[in-house]
């Protein structure tokens, strides 16, 4: 029933992806009543999620491909094995 801070913040992370179960969320709520530090973690966690979304939008991996040079190199290496 009683969560450690480690367990509580794990559930807190799950909530950021909408994947904490009902019972987990109840236990988390009770933990917050007793623990200000985890409450602060939870608040900052939402800020972090916002940051990750901003990061995702501008991620440099959104569009990427191999350059011709890379392909040529792989092509040659592959041919040498045929």
């Amino acid at each position, binding site marked *: 029933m009683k969560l*450690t*801070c*480690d*367990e509580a*913040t*794990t559930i807190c*992370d*799950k909530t*950021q*992806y909408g*994947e904490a179960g009902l019972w987990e969320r109840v236990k988390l709520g009770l933990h917050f009543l007793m623990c200000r*530090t985890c409450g*602060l*973690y939870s608040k*900052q*966690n939402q*800020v*972090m999620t*916002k*940051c*990750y979304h*901003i*990061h*995702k939008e*501008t*991620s440099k*991996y959104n569009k*990427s*491909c*191999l350059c011709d040079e*890379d*392909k040529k190199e*792989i*092509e040659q*290496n*592959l041919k040498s*094995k*045929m």
Partner: protein
Amino acid sequence: MSLSSNHMLNPNKWVTLYADYLYNYTISRVSNHDTAKDIVQDTFFAALKAQDNFQGKASERTWLVSILKRKIIDHYRKINSIKGKAEVKMNFYTDGEREGEWIEERAPTDWGGEVEKKIENEELKVVLEKCIDYLPEKYAMVFRMKTIQQFETEDICKELEITSSNLWVIIHRARTQLRKCMEDNWFKN
């Protein structure tokens, strides 16, 4: 049957036809250009060796992707087995009377009132990217797949052959370390 099936594979055209597709599949998981390039090349090598196993039931691309998926698991296992430096800093006591409690110097502290303004600052992305890169590779990989690529938990578990509780431990450790990194280098800087 096994003799004629080879005719459906055309290794000479693999790079032209599939290199970009395989590379994109890989980079969204490993997030490092050189690593992704090596994995794609390894996939072609392995496919070349395994040509006789191609039964023509799937398309050439699907067959190559199935080999690529094995290569990605192999890569994950490799980075998972690098001991020592590959661990994140602990945020909670792991044994004794205080097991599961915050380690004081790693616990969250107040970020002050300028948080919203700091989120909108363009520089944030640079600092955040550095913090993610600072994670041990295994944590960065799972964190990115879940948070940046937004893959389903179930799919990541299947792809990397890990359990969901394993995944959440990794996500949790990654996020607590990233929080601390951003606190030190951005929000309280």
